[in-house]
């Protein structure tokens, strides 16, 4: 097997990287240029969103089927490079999500990236999807390390201390459902449609957030973990017991959203204390929110207030970079490339891949559980 070329990085030069994202339901590609001083220019950012196709199902239709990503990835790649104005030869590296996520999608994106890297003789960077989210504020903001990150999406809910590239400490995570999943399932229970987050939010605007007293799971605990399964159950029971009118929908949506916001803010508050203790930093610090749930305006408003009272700057990426996108993967690739970190052409797809080092050291490197790559 041919070996992947090592980067030939001159620190004063810009790096142009193509990024691929296909770990869940989006097929996406982006070309960006990162300058040595950290400035980023997004040259193209193409996402084939499938929201329109999801509606009949009241939930996300998975692109578990590699063939669905496969159908889209080639035209999207071509479009991303063509519209970026750079040539294939101008690329300094090819980055792709290598996990965690749905195995079919991850393999499709990673294999496409490997094929391109080999054909063009460029370095390959296998990116952790969560690292993409963790770095996403750096796409548009001058957001220096360290910072405290709340990552809340359909598949993940974590609080991370981000102290440098590849340096992430998990302060808390969900023990059951992800935050976005709670929104999606609430929308599904009441038949509000998909995507659940925006639907719940728009119904909540018409409802009374104090109409129903939903639980605040984990509130007041010493750790910074989340739990959303009990809240989901409470919503299902409240809906069953309601008269199922539009008023009931709006009140349940508003009360649910308030419970979610309260819970997340309580957990972030706890994480801020843990973060201060861990970093010893008592001065002005940075709180960053990322992931699809970061689009929720009530959560954003609450985080902004909390940040101000705890002496933090609050940074939220633009909405288009909150959800899954390829620009964040290209950025993670460019930052790794600049640091001289690349991967071999045998880099594995990893359906489970925790971001923090301690967990990663104990984690399986491939396939299901701790079994071998053939399982």
């Amino acid at each position, binding site marked *: 097997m041919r070996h992947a070329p090592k980067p030939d990085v001159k620190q004063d030069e810009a790096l142009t990287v193509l990024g691929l994202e296909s770990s869940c339901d989006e097929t996406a590609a982006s070309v960006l240029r990162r300058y040595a001083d950290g400035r980023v220019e997004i040259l193209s950012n193409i996402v084939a969103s499938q929201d329109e196709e999801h509606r009949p199902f009241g939930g*996300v239709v*998975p692109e*578990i089927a590699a063939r669905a990503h496969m159908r889209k990835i080639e035209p999207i790649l071509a479009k991303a490079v063509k519209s970026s104005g750079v040539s294939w030869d101008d690329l300094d590296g090819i980055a792709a999500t290598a996990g965690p*996520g749905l195995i079919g999608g991850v393999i499709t994106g990673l294999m496409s990236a490997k094929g391109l890297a080999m054909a063009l003789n460029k370095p390959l960077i296998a990116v952790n999807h969560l690292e993409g989210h963790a770095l996403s504020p750096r796409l548009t903001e001058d957001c220096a390390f360290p910072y405290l990150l709340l990552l809340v999406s359909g598949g993940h809910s974590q609080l991370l201390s981000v102290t440098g590239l590849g340096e992430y400490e998990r302060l808390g995570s969900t023990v059951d459902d992800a935050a976005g999943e709670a929104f999606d*399932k609430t929308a599904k229970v009441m038949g509000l449609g998909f995507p659940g987050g925006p639907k719940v939010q728009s119904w909540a605007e018409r409802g009374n957030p104090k109409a129903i007293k939903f639980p605040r799971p984990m509130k007041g605990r010493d750790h910074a973990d989340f739990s959303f399964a009990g809240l989901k159950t409470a919503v299902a*029971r409240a809906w069953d017991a309601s008269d199922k009118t539009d008023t009931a929908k709006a009140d349940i949506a508003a009360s649910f959203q308030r419970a979610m916001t309260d819970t997340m803010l309580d957990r972030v508050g706890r994480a801020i204390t843990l973060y201060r203790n861990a970093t010893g930093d008592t001065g002005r610090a940075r709180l960053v929110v990322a992931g699809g749930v970061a689009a929720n305006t009530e959560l954003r408003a609450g985080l902004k207030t909390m940040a101000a009272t705890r002496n933090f700057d609050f940074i939220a990426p633009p909405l288009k970079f909150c959800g899954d996108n390829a620009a964040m993967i290209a950025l993670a690739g460019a930052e790794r490339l600049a640091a001289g970190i690349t991967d071999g052409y045998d880099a594995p797809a990893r359906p489970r891949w925790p971001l923090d080092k301690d967990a990663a050291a104990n984690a399986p490197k491939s396939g*299901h559980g701790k079994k071998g790559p053939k399982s």
Partner: protein
Amino acid sequence: MDQFTPQNEAEMLALGARLGGALEAGDTVALIGDLGAGKTTLARGLVQAVLPQEVVPSPTYTLVQAYDLPEFTLLHCDLYRLEHPDEAYEIGLIDAMGEDVCLIEWPDRLGPHLPQDAMIIDIKFEGDGRVVSLRGWGNRHV
């Protein structure tokens, strides 16, 4: 038919642990219950009885969560997001059935791929508690 009536989360976890003790490699178990009934809680009880530190998240997003337990590998699946039964091949479920223990939420999504002799765990709401019924467990000692 065996029936259990867990009244809270702790009792559901304990029931999961007990059911796990009766399972053998190769079992396919259909896990039925409405949203919020406690399907993932039961699975968590099963896993954490032998791996106390293991985090057992909902498999809705990933479709499959795999756990290497001392007696068998457990695949905890949520097939709600499957569009077609044949997609079960692509997540490796068809290959795993008959070899690993497959604990399957939304088993109807499997269509013809669901084995006729699949064991069933059916969770229903009753008041604030739940009724958990086992069917097709034969002479397994629970």
